């Protein structure tokens, strides 16, 4: 059976070069980089090389500004809690957007319990934050603004450089969750004008469990994990050298290939974004059409529910994601789509295709072939669709 994997935002495969680069550190070079004897040398050198590779990917001035963590979620927790707590004498107000990842959203909720106040900046129908709304949300006691670089669910890329002009003027620390963008589109922390950035290795074909937080030199952060002096005392715990080396290698390759990858993925993404609404009526593209991640195609298919589409696509060999209540373990419709103004009924029909470097135009052709009969079948058994048909007949 044809197998088409279009769920790279959930998990991406390792590049063979990455796998090769990290294997020695699971094997002969197992030493601890803190060790002073010979066994510590190779891992220490490899770790510092990886730090430089990751710093280079995001245009960071100094590799020491990179703190390795174990997930994008940890980086976001670290940023929200650590950056806010380090400035608690200045104020207790945090600004985030309404469509942040749960790791930012729930970290902010945690800070609320500690007496912080959270303001949520709304987004428009395309999922875009208006920088002027960030300006309005900033108060004299605001210590942190965190706006994601791009949303993994609808693909919209935020105007971060415009937002950073405002936070600089107001002298507020700006963090961004760039898990969806680092290695996927060119990211340069200087050009973006930000103070801290979360990233993860897997989206650019590094190992899962590899991630980092970049904090600009001079910006204070309180550690989440107390213990030894690893990562400059900012993140205690013996480093996962294999993951770190793999992330470094993946970053090095991404820095070289990011533009070419983006062009290729944008082409096949647009085949799907144009093709699906063309083949199936009542399908809307979610997110911004222009300011959009390459390889990211997201839709709401009206009158039917996302999980049932996902399961039927799976039976045809196609792997996708959905933001419907049924798909989420929390049994809630996507907060992203709701914040963008979609109602629950439409949000339940959410479907997300995320492409990777091994996808080909034929993969999209296959989806465009198998998808219309699936939608027809599910609509045929949908009470919402039959109500719609009756209402539109009655209207004529």
């Amino acid at each position, binding site marked *: 059976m044809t197998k088409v994997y279009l769920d790279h935002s959930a998990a991406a495969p390792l590049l063979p070069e990455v796998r090769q680069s990290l294997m020695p550190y699971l094997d002969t070079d197992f030493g601890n980089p803190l060790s002073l004897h010979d066994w510590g040398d190779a891992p220490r050198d490899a770790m510092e090389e990886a730090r430089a590779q990751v710093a280079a990917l995001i245009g960071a001035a100094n590799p020491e500004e990179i703190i390795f963590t174990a997930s994008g979620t940890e980086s976001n927790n670290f940023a929200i809690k650590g950056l806010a707590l380090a400035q608690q004498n200045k104020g207790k107000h945090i600004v985030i957007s*309404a469509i942040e990842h749960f790791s930012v*959203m729930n970290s902010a909720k945690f800070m609320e319990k500690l007496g912080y106040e959270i303001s*949520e900046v709304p987004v428009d129908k395309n999922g875009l934050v208006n920088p002027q709304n960030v300006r309005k949300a900033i108060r004299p006691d605001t210590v942190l603004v965190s706006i994601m670089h791009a949303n993994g669910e609808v693909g919209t890329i935020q105007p971060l450089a415009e937002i950073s002009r405002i936070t600089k003027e107001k002298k507020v620390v700006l963090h961004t969750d760039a898990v969806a963008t680092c290695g996927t589109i060119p990211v340069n922390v200087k050009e973006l004008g930000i103070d801290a950035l979360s990233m993860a290795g897997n989206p650019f074909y590094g190992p899962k469990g590899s991630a980092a937080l970049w904090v600009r030199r001079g910006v204070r952060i309180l550690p989440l994990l107390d213990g030894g002096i690893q990562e400059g005392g900012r993140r205690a715990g013996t480093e996962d050298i294999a993951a770190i080396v793999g992330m470094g290698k993946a970053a090095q390759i991404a820095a070289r290939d990011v533009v070419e990858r983006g062009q290729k993925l944008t082409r096949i993404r647009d085949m799907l974004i144009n093709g699906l609404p063309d083949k199936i009526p009542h399908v809307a593209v979610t997110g911004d059409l222009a300011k959009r991640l390459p390889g990211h195609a997201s839709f709401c298919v009206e*009158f*039917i*529910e996302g*999980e*049932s589409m996902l*399961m*039927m696509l799976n*039976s045809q060999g196609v792997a996708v994601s959905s933001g*419907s*209540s*049924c*798909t989420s*373990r929390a*049994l*809630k*419709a*996507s*907060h992203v789509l*709701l*914040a963008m103004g979609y*109602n*629950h*009924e439409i949000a*339940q029909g959410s479907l997300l295709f995320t492409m990777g470097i091994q996808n080909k135009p034929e993969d999209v052709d296959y989806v465009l072939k198998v998808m219309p009969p699936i939608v027809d079948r599910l609509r*045929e*058994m*949908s*009470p*919402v*669709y*039959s109500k719609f048909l009756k209402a539109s007949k009655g209207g004529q």
Partner: protein
Amino acid sequence: MPVYSEKVMDHFMHPRNVGEIENADGVGEVGNPVCGDMMTFYIKVKDNRLEDVKYKTFGCGAAIAVSSMVSEMAKGATIEEAQKITPESVAKMLEGLPKQKFHCSNLGAQALNKAIDDYLIKTGKLKADEGKCCPFCDHEDSENDPVCKQGCQVNSPEAKVS
């Protein structure tokens, strides 16, 4: 192991008795778009038996499989037999449902019972004093309220994170 049992997948991929019945003797509708699953059951009754059972379902794989199984269990049964169909017996016949699906998607028995109540009310065998219930906590809500007023966990519009 796949999320769904083989039986669930079979009923999901090949749902039985899908459709509507024109001039049905009873119609029962449950669910709402907030929770993601909606089902409408239609019954035709002859000599106290469910001569025909059909349904339309908006929802996940589990919701569709549940509707299909309920229709199979109810078709040909007497009213009393059909009233004994429960979410538990449906789940058992489907060889189990994932834990988080049991409450949200297992609305078929309830929709069928609503259709039966509708029939019993129409034929004067039951008094029409029942309000609409939240499928999760059985709290009675007004006819047009899409959200449980009781604010029960699953059904609350918490998704709009404030």
